[in-house]
């Protein structure tokens, strides 16, 4: 019934999806190599008339961008690490233990995942100024941790629920100590779920813009998304378009690398726990 013809047909639609997803990236790539002074001439053609690295030189010599890159990497990695550790405990409890408050915990995670962050920027802005953590790394790490936790908890508890925990006891019956059973049996089984959760959490922190732009004011903590919105190019007389595209390519590279390396895991992470199986 499934002829070769229909199989070709699905491949064709697969190519359409591929083009649809990649097209804006190709334009971003092409524009990042256009000459910032002359790219508008010639009716803004799709490909550059002459390829140049100038935009990359511009963004890497701009303190706004380089410090934003440092801030983004540092804040996203720290927030991801903390969130994964805190969520790991909660996810283990949710997947393995019976306790009162479990439903409350899950409903609260759900509520916070849907929380309108914009409703908090006013109070946080004011509170952070009072606490002296406005425009600092910690001032962004705390809210990122909060808003990444629901995602981390769900994803990890879904993964943890699939682990055959009996194997731990089986290993102990076979003579392993409790610690050996945990380290040799459970850790390898749980690691992929923890790792996948970390990737998804990192994407969230790397992407976040509203809090980043509300709770920072200088290069001290401004992350890439916030810095991009301030970027003006090499000089105020030059259009920032090509330089912003070059900066965009730079910050998209980590995302593309992670996606290429861990496609299967990311899909599993996004779907495994999404809907009850």
């Amino acid at each position, binding site marked *: 019934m499934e002829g070769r013809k229909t199989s070709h047909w*699905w491949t064709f639609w697969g190519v359409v*999806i591929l083009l649809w997803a990649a097209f804006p990236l190709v334009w971003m790539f092409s524009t990042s190599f256009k000459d910032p002074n002359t790219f508008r001439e010639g009716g803004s053609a799709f490909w550059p008339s002459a390829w140049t690295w100038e935009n990359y030189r511009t963004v890497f010599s701009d303190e706004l961008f380089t410090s934003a890159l440092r801030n983004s990497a540092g804040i996203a990695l720290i927030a991801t690490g903390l969130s994964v550790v805190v969520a790991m405990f909660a996810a283990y*409890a949710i997947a393995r233990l019976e306790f009162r408050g479990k439903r409350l915990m899950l409903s609260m995670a759900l509520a*916070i995942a*849907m929380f*309108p962050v*914009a409703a908090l920027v*006013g109070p*946080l802005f004011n509170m952070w100024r009072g606490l002296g953590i406005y425009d600092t790394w910690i001032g962004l790490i705390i809210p990122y941790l909060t808003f990444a936790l629901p995602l981390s908890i769900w994803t990890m508890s879904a993964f943890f629920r699939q682990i055959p925990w009996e194997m731990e006891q089986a290993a102990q019956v076979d003579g392993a100590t409790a610690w050996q059973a945990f380290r040799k049996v459970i850790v390898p089984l749980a690691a992929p779920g923890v790792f996948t959760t970390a990737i998804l959490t990192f994407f969230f922190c790397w992407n976040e813009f509203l809090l980043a732009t509300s709770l920072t004011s200088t290069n001290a903590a401004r992350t890439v998304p916030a810095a991009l919105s301030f970027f003006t190019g090499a000089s105020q007389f030059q259009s920032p378009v090509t330089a912003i595209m070059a900066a965009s390519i730079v910050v998209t590279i980590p995302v593309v690398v992670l996606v290429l390396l861990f496609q299967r895991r990311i899909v599993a992470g996004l779907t495994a726990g999404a809907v*009850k199986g």
Partner: protein
Amino acid sequence: MTTAVPGPMEAAAVVRRSASDRVLHERRLGLWLSAPAFIVMIAVTAYPLAYAVVMSLYQYRLTDPAGRSFIGLQNYATVLTDPIWWSAVLTTFVITAISVAVELVLGFCFAWVMYRIIRGRSIVRTSILVPYGIITVVSAFVFRYSFQADSGFVNSWFNLGTFNWFGQRWSSLFVITFSEIWKTTPFISLLLLAGLVQVPYDLQEAAQVDGASAWQRLWRVTLPNMKAAIMVAVLFRTLDAWRIFDNPFIMTAGANGTETLSILAYRQNVTLVNLGAGSAVSVLLFLSVLLIAFIFVKGFRTDLSQVRGGQ
């Protein structure tokens, strides 16, 4: 033999006590393990929200701290009678309704292709994750510059001359919604794919044997069996679209009637440091999200226990 053999009653009591000990221990461990996550989540949401509720009852500008005074619900009256608020509600509603509707159809098509495709399956899945993972600000810039008459290719490809997409409300909203759809369709399509693979294949086959057309099978068998996945995907995306900020902020910064509720809250609180009225906007935004969630759960009977993590 003097070894005390416990009678049946005593044995039951011993078993019960150790069982309830274990239950108690498990409960306590569960609470301890989830306490850190619970505290962090509460501290950064509930407390600031309560703070916003209190602030919203005051007239208070950061630029004029001495002029702070209690004015009751007057901020809410000011906000709710201001056309700026209602314009933001309309803008947000239009973006949400159109993007969710288009994404549902498009996302289902994507899910269907990913489900059926044989050659190149992993390439398609990889490519679809790029829009998901890319920074929203970056994709907003790409769409903005692509549509902008002087830097982009859209006008020259479609012979639009120097048409200014960002010069008026509806064309701006078109680009904003388009960019939002590009960025978030992958997420919805993966949720739908997860629902799709759970539709029992026997059902499809049985319907086919009974002579149902492909179209009938889709509407009578596949979609009804995916109802939970569809409702959850729609609820998630609706609430996500309702707080849209990045795309309109980068493209128009809210000019020409494209200000969304999140941009309004941001502008009042952070740009104008008008913390009284700004807090009223924050509280109203929060209430609108609650209302939408309530409509979904009660009106459309979305079963939230089907959502991630629920048991």
